[in-house]
């Protein structure tokens, strides 16, 4: 008996995926990523200083995945997300004011202060919510994709989940059902190498989670999750496939989170080698895109600096807005339990 299964995984985007790159696209992806980066850094600090309640699972390091996938989706396309959901929301177009307000637990927040970080939502942009249950959003996404197919409206759904989540039952059930019914759903596994503090090698015997696609008779694609253009390219293929009626795709984006599982720093035990962290930071997604932009001549250092600055201003505005927003009234505590 041979113990190594042959694999049907596709590696990386198709050749020439950077061809025809435009200035607009570079700046669009850059803006999405910078917005995530700064939002996460600032909100992480606000919790650390005790200014903001709750606990946060920060997305820093993984920006290229959300930015790349979201850049091929429209507002009518739906996504479901995870406990690490800010990045998905921001890349999908969520605004800082109601996001910060939500983290501050204010009435002006996306959830009116009811949900907080782990339930960030923006229905108007097809962001069907973060989810505090690992794997919890995956079945919901196939429902969104089912609605697309049922209505024939040409929309698709994407669901984000981690390497750890790919071991939970809900993943298996959902991707199989989506495959059987050719639902227009993109399964995006953000493999950052760890489920909390447990390394991938301790939670599965695979190197490439995309291999699991074969169990459902659908394509599995591995992509560099630090290259937003590569992510975008494979996402485009998957969306095309979904829209053509051919069904779902499993995309595995190899990526990394820079901060701790929760919060910025909290490494109680040294579960990651500092050298490993540094090596990943060397391949920072924003740096990579900025290099592509300047080397291709499509964008300048000044263009990027402007985005950083303008985003920073947005951050300041968002925090200010949140702080000045009204607290919810405990008298309303029973509102919105039911639709009446």
């Amino acid at each position, binding site marked *: 008996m041979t113990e190594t299964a042959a694999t049907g995984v596709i590696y990386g985007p198709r050749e020439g995926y950077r061809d025809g790159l435009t200035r607009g696209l570079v700046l669009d992806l850059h803006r999405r990523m910078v917005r995530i980066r700064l939002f996460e850094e600032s909100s992480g600090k606000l919790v650390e200083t005790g200014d903001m309640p709750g606990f946060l699972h920060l997305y820093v390091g993984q920006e290229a995945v959300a930015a790349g996938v979201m850049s091929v989706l429209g507002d009518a396309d739906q996504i479901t997300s995870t406990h690490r959901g800010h990045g998905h929301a921001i890349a999908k177009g969520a605004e800082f004011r109601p996001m910060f307000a939500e983290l501050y637990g204010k009435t002006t927040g996306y959830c009116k202060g009811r949900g907080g970080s782990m339930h960030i939502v923006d229905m108007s942009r097809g962001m069907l919510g973060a989810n505090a249950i690992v794997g919890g959003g995956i079945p919901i996404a196939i429902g*969104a994709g089912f609605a697309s197919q049922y209505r024939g409206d040409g929309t698709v759904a994407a669901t984000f989940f981690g390497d750890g989540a790919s071991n939970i039952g809900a993943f298996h059930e959902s991707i199989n*059902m989506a495959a059987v019914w050719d639902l227009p759903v993109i399964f995006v596994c953000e493999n950052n190498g760890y489920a909390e503090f447990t390394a991938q090698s301790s939670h599965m015997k695979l190197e490439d989670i995309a291999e699991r696609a074969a169990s459902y008779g659908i394509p599995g694609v591995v992509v560099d999750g630090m290259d937003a253009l590569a992510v975008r390219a494979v996402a485009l293929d998957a969306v095309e496939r979904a829209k053509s009626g051919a069904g779902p795709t499993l995309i595995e984006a190899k990526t990394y989170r820079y901060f701790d599982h929760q919060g910025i720093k909290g490494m109680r035990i040294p579960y990651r080698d500092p050298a490993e962290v540094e090596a990943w930071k060397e391949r920072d997604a924003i740096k990579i895109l900025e290099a592509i932009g300047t080397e291709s001549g499509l964008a300048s250092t000044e263009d990027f600096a402007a985005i950083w600055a303008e985003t920073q201003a947005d951050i300041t505005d968002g925090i200010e807005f949140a702080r000045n927003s009204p607290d919810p009234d405990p008298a309303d505590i029973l509102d*919105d339990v039911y639709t009446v």
Partner: protein
Amino acid sequence: MTTRELTYVKAFNEGMHQMMASDPDVFLIGEDVAGYGGVFHMFDGLLTEFGDRRVKDTPIAEQAIIGLGVGAAARGLRPVCDLMFMDFIGVAMDQIFNQAAKMKYMFGGAVSVPLTITTAGGGGMSAAAQHSQSLEAWLAHIPGLKVAMPASPYDAKGLIVGAIRDDNPTIVVLNKKMLGVKGLVPEELYGIPMGVANVVREGTDVTIVAIARMVVEATKAAKELEAEGISVEVIDPRTVQPLDTDTIVTSVKKTHRALIVHEAVEFGGIGAEISSQIQESAFDYLDAPVARLAAPFSPVPYAPILENAYMPDAARIAAKVRALVERS
């Protein structure tokens, strides 16, 4: 307005047919609900009438079945997701209580989840511990969910229609042993709203609040007791969430005695909540402690002789009522 006799399951089935005909956003998924029409015939004829876009057999994957319903409902469709036996709820519970039920609240009201889950509960079939349970107490304890338990053919139709029309996640629990029970059912489409109890029978001495099939047994007991001069009011809450406390309390204020009957185990059953509410709201009216009659604290046994002893029936209900009357 023609009314005729239908079985409980046919009445339910008619409600499904009419709702699917009247609303193109209603669809049905579940294990063997399409080609086979459901293992209890609940969904007979739907595939033929509405086609395989709207009526679909699924893999065995209850998390995906319910979750798909949650996502589709959040996008404005009105899914009906079948969970063949209520006992299987354990493999899909997260999607029911953490997702479907909480979504609206967690999202600050930004979404509605008009999902209907259908399932079959109850014992009496020698189906043993994993195919006979009554778990409504769990469901009623979940803010955001509604829970209907039809106890007649009329209600089987009215409550599935009411559930599908309701904009909230709602579970309709059919009772397996009632599937063949007959009753009068109007032909036209009608819905029973969630939260409105049915006073099945009026009486003055004791109020029985009975759940699901126990309504039938309680009614039998009430007839028996009438001959003995004990006048029993039988109330079927129809939905245990929301619970029509007003109707129940008003009755007990009149009768001064109450008995709650259900098939689920007594400890932590919905009877505990009903009993508590009664004594909280009608304490000064009570001539005897509010009583409960339900299953003993064990899994449902297989052998018919054990299962018969396990489930409350008319005789035991009557005995309990007599004791209540004698007490005061």
